[in-house]
């Protein structure tokens, strides 16, 4: 048994089936713990009062939105280099979750921004980059949707993800540069004055919960993709017969 065994859709299908409950339950447990810490244990911030508590959702979502994109780029690169079917499926399974986290990060950012800055939206470097990241996710998903041929769609999506991944740091840097020129340093998201330890722990727990959730959802989706793509093969027919 080598690594290649796990890369075969059949093995991975069953492996994923075993893993999904673990990740799901861990995610639920951690979310409950994280939310409890964030809303009941963590103290009220003396500057931002209760409104700051949105960061327990906002920050993990923003982290995941970027992290998932990088993971997609990684799977895309692996798929292009070694022609492994499973890595393309992983990329496809991750994209919707990444887009959702990006959307959540933007939405909660606006909610946080209203009490903080008095505006739903400011053209801050991070918010703007996040918005462009959402455009990139939407573009990739739209490209997959437009291409009927699976193989072509996989590769085209991977190439687009890669050029986006090269571009993201440049976009972030350029937006930041543009932002400082136009608005000065009046707004800074980076100031986190003496964040209490318990706040940090709450945020980390939420981040790990988001991570496990992502893995669980991606595995469920990848199982669906495997079944769809391999529906001509014998082992899938067996499964379908057993379940109907």
């Amino acid at each position, binding site marked *: 048994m080598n690594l290649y065994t796990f890369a075969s859709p059949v093995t991975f299908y069953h492996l994923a089936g075993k893993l999904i409950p673990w990740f799901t339950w861990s995610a639920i447990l951690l979310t409950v713990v994280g939310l409890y810490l964030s809303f009941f244990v963590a103290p009220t911030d003396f500057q931002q009062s209760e409104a700051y508590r949105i960061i327990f959702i906002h920050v993990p979502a923003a982290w995941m939105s970027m992290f998932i994109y990088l993971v997609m780029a990684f799977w895309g690169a692996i798929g*292009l280099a070694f022609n492994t079917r499973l890595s393309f499926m992983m990329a496809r399974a991750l994209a919707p979750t990444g887009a959702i986290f990006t959307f959540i990060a933007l939405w909660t950012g606006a909610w946080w921004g209203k009490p903080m800055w008095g505006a739903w939206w400011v053209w801050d470097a991070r918010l703007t980059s996040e918005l*462009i990241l959402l*455009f*990139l996710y*939407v*573009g990739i998903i*739209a*490209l997959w949707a*437009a*291409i009927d041929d699976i*193989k*072509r769609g996989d*590769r*085209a999506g991977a*190439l*687009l993800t*890669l*050029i*986006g991944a*090269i*571009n993201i740091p*440049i*976009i972030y*840097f*350029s*937006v930041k*540069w*543009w932002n400082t*020129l136009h608005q000065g340093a009046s707004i800074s998201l980076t100031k986190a004055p003496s964040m209490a330890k318990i706040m940090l722990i709450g945020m980390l727990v939420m981040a790990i919960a988001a991570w496990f959730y992502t893995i669980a959802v991606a595995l469920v989706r990848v199982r669906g993709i495997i079944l769809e793509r391999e529906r001509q093969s014998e082992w899938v027919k067996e499964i379908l017969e057993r379940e109907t």
Partner: protein
Amino acid sequence: MHRFILAVLRRDLTLAARRRGDWLIAQFFFVMVASLFPLGVGPEPEMLARIGPGVLWVAATLASLLSLSRLFADDHHDGSLEHMVLSPEPTVLLVLGKSLAHWLIYCIPLLIIAPVLGIQFNLPWDAILVLEISLLLGTPILSLLGGVGAALTLGLRGGGVLLTLLILPLYVPALIFGAGAVDGVMAGTGAQAHLSLLGAFMVLSLMIAPWIAAAALRVSLE
């Protein structure tokens, strides 16, 4: 190597010269979009000068995007694209040649029209000069990145709109540095930093985009 690029270039330029209609449409589009803004926001000269650099940059971007979806589509349609890809020469050079041709055909005329529009927007002469330099450095990026988009969306239904969706986010840095350079010279902070970054982004696109576009072209033709 350069002989092949020249062959591609000469071919596309000849074809463009035979079909001047397509070429003129993009230029008129540029003029029209730019002219709509004063009608929308009002004719105050100070306001126009403030929004001018950004408006002209966005309009130039859209005008050259308009033609990008046909970068490979026409050749794909009549089968000559397959012949070109089956040439013993590397596909990267083919993409490079075609991007260069696109830039010469669609972007150089924009550079010629831009000063006139700059005057309409009440830009000072030094700002117009910087606008020209920034367009000169920035429009090749669009042709290069657009090559990737055109290759990825080759032969798809609604490919033109999709291409726009894929490419515009990637193009943001060029827009920021380009329009920022003109803003900078008008605000008295100088344009050099912006122009250097724009140049760096152009060089980076030149080194990376053709490879990805070539790979995308092979994927799309499969």
